[in-house]
């Protein structure tokens, strides 16, 4: 089994990235037209809410985690060794 360096070929990676963007558009488009059966929270009615929430969650998690890590948690590797 060989991949032949597919992840290092800029052309192939470009195609892959575009496919992902296309998928995003398709999913949001479906979200605008699909019928809804389960509406437990008010945001269940907003088309594209989960896209926005997914992106926002990811960014918030990265920024908050890295900040807490930098100022509070991260120590040198030999911290416990002395």
């Amino acid at each position, binding site marked *: 089994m060989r991949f032949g360096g597919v992840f290092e070929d800029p052309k192939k990676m470009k195609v892959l990235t575009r496919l992902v963007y296309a998928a995003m558009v398709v999913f949001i488009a479906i979200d605008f037209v699909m019928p809804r059966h389960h509406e437990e929270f008010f945001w269940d009615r907003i088309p594209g809410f989960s896209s926005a929430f997914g992106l926002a*969650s990811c960014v918030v998690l990265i920024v908050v985690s890295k900040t807490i890590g930098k100022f509070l948690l*991260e120590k040198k590797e030999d911290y*416990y060794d002395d």
Partner: protein
Amino acid sequence: MISWIHPGAILILGSILIPVLPGKAKKGYLLLLPALAFLSVLLTHEGTYWTYHFLGQAIVFGRADRLAIVFAYVFSVAAFASMLYGLHVKEDGHHIAAFVYAGSAMGVAFAGDFITLIIFWEFMAFSSVFLILYRKTAKAYAAAYRYILVHIFGGICLMGGAFLQYSQTHSMAFNHVEAGGLAFALILIGFMLNAAVPPLGAWLPDAYPEATVSGVVFMSAFTTKSAVYVLIRGFAGTEILLWLGVIMAVYGIVYAIIENDIRRLLSYHIISQVGYMVAAVGIGTEMAINGATAHAFNNILYKGLLFMGAGSILHVTGKTRLDELGGLYKTMPRTFILYMIAGFSISGVPLFSGFVGKSMILSAAGEEHLSYVWLILTLVSTGTFLSTTLKLPYLAFMAKDRGIKAADPPGNMTAAMGIVAFLCIFIGIYPKYLYDMLPYATHYAPYTLEHVVWSGQILLFTWLGYYIYINKLKGHPGLNLDTDWFYRKGAGVFMAVDREVVAPADSAVGEAYRKVVLRLGSWLSGLSFRFDVGIVDGFLHGLVRFGVWFSSLFSRRSLSFDKGVIDGVVNGVADFTVSLAAVTRRFQTGLVHDYAFGILVGLLVLINVFFLIS
């Protein structure tokens, strides 16, 4: 006719024979035992088996209801896959510890009373610690020591709580905990410690990354998930668990996002995932309990597979740090694909198992209109995709090719990963297989258009977030503080007392120990060596010589029996004893605070016994 055989008993008692079996037969036997245990779970009908009476208490080894059976089922599957993964391990003690550990987890699942539960609970702690010790590094020895101390503390809390409950209710039966006050709190603390609920959970990311390559695969399956099982049994609907679970889910993911060591990243991620289950136990509705069970079932599989993938990287390259890894997808393609199957499963990608299990917990939160819980758990699920399925594989398998010499791991390891990956996909496309085993009947339908579109958007836009911040999440060396700081570093005052008072006393006692106990010990061992050489060996040689003489009378075949089997048994037992002793002697530290802790634990045990009697 025998109505039921305890699957845990098959593993625990069966493991005794491991040291005496030669080469290939041993490997077959190592796979046969968990296969038999699996068969025995399959044949288990609901009912109560193996009930004994002891000191006026009913001891129930086999309370088999739907909840117990589904956990025992997945425990036996995990035992088989993990053993296959670690089949190449040479030390018999490692295999025995793994089987005693897995069997005890099943013992916990089938335990109908607190006495049985506590026995197997302690067995789990004392067998799993060997899976760390067999790594045989200084770091592993230290981590194992902390691991066992923390678990002894948890076990004592559980025992104290159980006996206090007995003093209130006059029953040791293990059901939903009705007792109030201290009994309730102590039992809950004991269970929460094993579930790694913060601040009691720092033992997990401290110990798991130091365990052996296959040991950690066992550990990821049993300790936290059996704790989820006992929480479901004893504390379903306890509101504090809902909030602790949510905190836990966030706590684990924050560490997972910044962690550099791949096995420690996955360890923190266990805490986050178990947080989901603990929150579901806190919700406590039928849907939530089904969700917690389904998520535990799936998690044992895909988390095991993630650890198998990470373990393969460690086994082949000797590295676990993301800042040292990169570009492995070309040299370890099978491992890469199998790891990604686990990653997609755990992230809840449609057609993989996480999608059909984890979503039940979110639906349960939705049914109860717990909007904040729903939002936070959804946020955490983006963190799952981000840390285990984007960051880790990108930095380890892709990113910068560091030219590390590597290849896919040995066949048994790949095969084990293949079996688990198959189950992850199978459950994803045929969820009825899992749903039919859940404790409550359900018609949950995961594949609705809304659900698929919702998940698809969450996942795609999480990827976008990662793509934007990709350079912020590169690995760099270092460690992250956790609550284990309190017992690893302690306060400055405590250290000063230690330096001025405890240390001199310690060294004095240590000196006395060396002078008296060790000398006595070496004298005794010399004596026993002489006994061994003079009498035991003499006897054995005599026996063998008699055997040779006897066999020469008949045929040469029995000579080979003598060489192969009798010598094999004798040598096998001896090798096993030596290797076990090499590991266990680590507990004989000669340091006064270690022994003081032992004395403290003993005192607590005595107090517990006193509670039981009075």
